[in-house]
């Protein structure tokens, strides 16, 4: 079972270490982790995607709540969230593969943001499934390196909001 944790923390040095340390010490999984300032410069938001049994997922929330630097935790399932990930993929190309790469980009809505004689860098900002799909499609062509931000997520707006 996957779960997303949107954790608002005091923007102090060492907080990321405390939160990440909690996960390693208690053997909780981190599938992805992203961190950044919020609109309030004193508050950072750490977005963590974790997976595990129901009990473990509950413990994660309770243990995070005990951390004195943690202000608020929102947790939600994938379906309840709008989640996005930014991914950069550098691929090697030649005459015979260039066309195919461009087609994949076009279909998935990815853009080419850098290129040289032999290399292309492709950027995609989309749902985790779509970024994963991009990697799968490019894998057969020859990926040189990949960088990704980890998932960022907010709870979906409901009609009553």
């Amino acid at each position, binding site marked *: 079972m996957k779960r997303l944790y949107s954790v608002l923390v005091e923007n102090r040095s060492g907080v990321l*270490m405390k939160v990440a340390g*909690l996960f390693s010490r208690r053997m909780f999984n981190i599938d992805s982790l992203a961190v950044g300032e919020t609109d309030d410069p004193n508050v950072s938001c750490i977005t963590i995607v974790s997976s595990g049994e129901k009990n473990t997922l509950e413990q994660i929330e309770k243990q995070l*709540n*005990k951390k004195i630097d943690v202000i608020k935790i929102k947790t939600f399932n994938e379906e309840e969230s709008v989640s996005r990930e930014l991914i950069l993929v550098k691929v090697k190309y030649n005459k015979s593969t260039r066309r195919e790469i461009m087609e994949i980009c076009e279909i998935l809505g990815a853009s080419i943001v850098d290129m040289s004689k032999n290399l292309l860098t492709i950027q995609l900002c989309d749902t985790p499934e779509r970024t994963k799909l991009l990697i799968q499609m490019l894998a057969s062509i020859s990926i040189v390196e990949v960088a990704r931000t980890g998932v960022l997520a907010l709870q979906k707006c409901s009609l009553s909001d």
Partner: protein
Amino acid sequence: MLGADAMARCLKEENVGVVFGYPGVAICPFFNSMLSVDIERVLVRTEQNAAHMASGYARISGKVGVCVATSGPGATNLITGIATAYADSIPIVCITGQVDSGQLGSDVFQEADITGAVESFVKYSYLVKNVEDIPRIFREAFHIASTGRRGPVLIDVPIDIQNAVISRFVYPAEVNLRTYKPTVKGHTEQIKKVIKAITGSKRPIICVGGGVHLSDATYEVRNFAHKYGIPVVSTLMGLSVMPTNDPLYFGMVGNNGKPYANKAMNESDLIIMIGARVADRAISQPDLIMDNTVLVHIDVDPAEIGKNVGPHIPLVGDIKAIFEEINKYDAECNCADWVETLNGYKADAPQRKKPRAEYVDPAVFITMLSEKLNDDAIYVADVGQNQMWSCGYHIVKNGRFLTSGGMGTMGYSIPAAIGARAAEPQRQIVAVCGDGSFQMSMMELATMQQHGLPVKIIIFHNGYLGLVREYQYHVYKGHYSVVDLSGSPDFGKLSEAYGIPFYKLKNMEGASKVLDDFLSCKDPALMEVMIDPMDVVK
């Protein structure tokens, strides 16, 4: 006023009576400022024991214990003591000196990232970066350590911050932490559910843990048990919540506990866990309990509830506050038959096998010792066979039983007893340890002599790390590896070297008289008790 003066002043504001510590250059400004406040300073012989002394002090005084060390090795030596306090939720504040803040991160002499190193053993930690923050940080640290689920807090203060001038010292009257508001009052609906569960129960049992002591709720919990006549069992940390001879008390649970206590847990239809973690040593298979039993779990830490076992009725809050409330309600509970059944189990409990007569029988000895102790005596058990025998045979009257439960840290008893002495100089205090655990903290004999903190110490001498030897006997067919303590000193000569009166008991002959002499002589005194090297806990 310097940062260091402000630190000393903060301790005064917190009403600290004593600090246990060890100096070094990086904490010297603080110790210099301590000369001008009236707070006792105890020089330990190794930093780990400063944390244990703070722990013993905290557990007996009900206040926050304070220990101090310098940067680098001083700070890292504290870690075992901090982890021990964390495992048992003991409120201590640890102050460490740190290298100049401009040099942090450059691996200068005696630099250690102590806030990073203790992260998983503290409730919170601070690295002070601005001298003006000192009053707020100290106020918060004492508040965090002593509220909610108690625990250690560390404050790391670079030497340049200690030497910097603070423009204005105002000790905050209140703590305002938006992220930390522990629950005190129990939820009324949940309390009503507990009362209803008691009314419907035929075989209720109360299991008390260390949280009852930490919340100072012994009186309220005893009243609760007696109001309904509900039998009580205890975890290791909950020992001395109930007097051993209370007719409702049925001993310690767990793999080293009383079989009838475990049987009571297994057969009950309602378990009321109070301030206990349902940890592996107490309950070997927590999921087995759940089948046909209603479980009420009362704890101050919401994360403990449901961590090891999912309760039917969770109740979060401070135990004292909760039981003051619960005791106002009335439930129908008639479990006299159940208590009778348990008394039957108790009577049928198998007797311990007698060891060879040429040695002291630890069970008989401990029972005899506890009968001779004062009503409110403090008994500090170390870790190992001595601890298990102490749990099994010490008869608590109205005193306290202290030990390192969660971490099982050898060498805890002597420094913890010294800390307890600093808290209550008038009370009778006995530390019971093995020849292994004694040698882990015997350097503190000098501390107790130097600072007038004498305690009575009993060494169970069997020449082995007994509990591990016992384990190797069972698991490795008696192939003993690194458990033989040959090379130990002559404890009589050692006592003499420290100027401590010495008593020795080779077997049970004349034991009563020797114990009388030992207990009636002026503190300190040391007693060596010869135990059969092959004697076992069970």
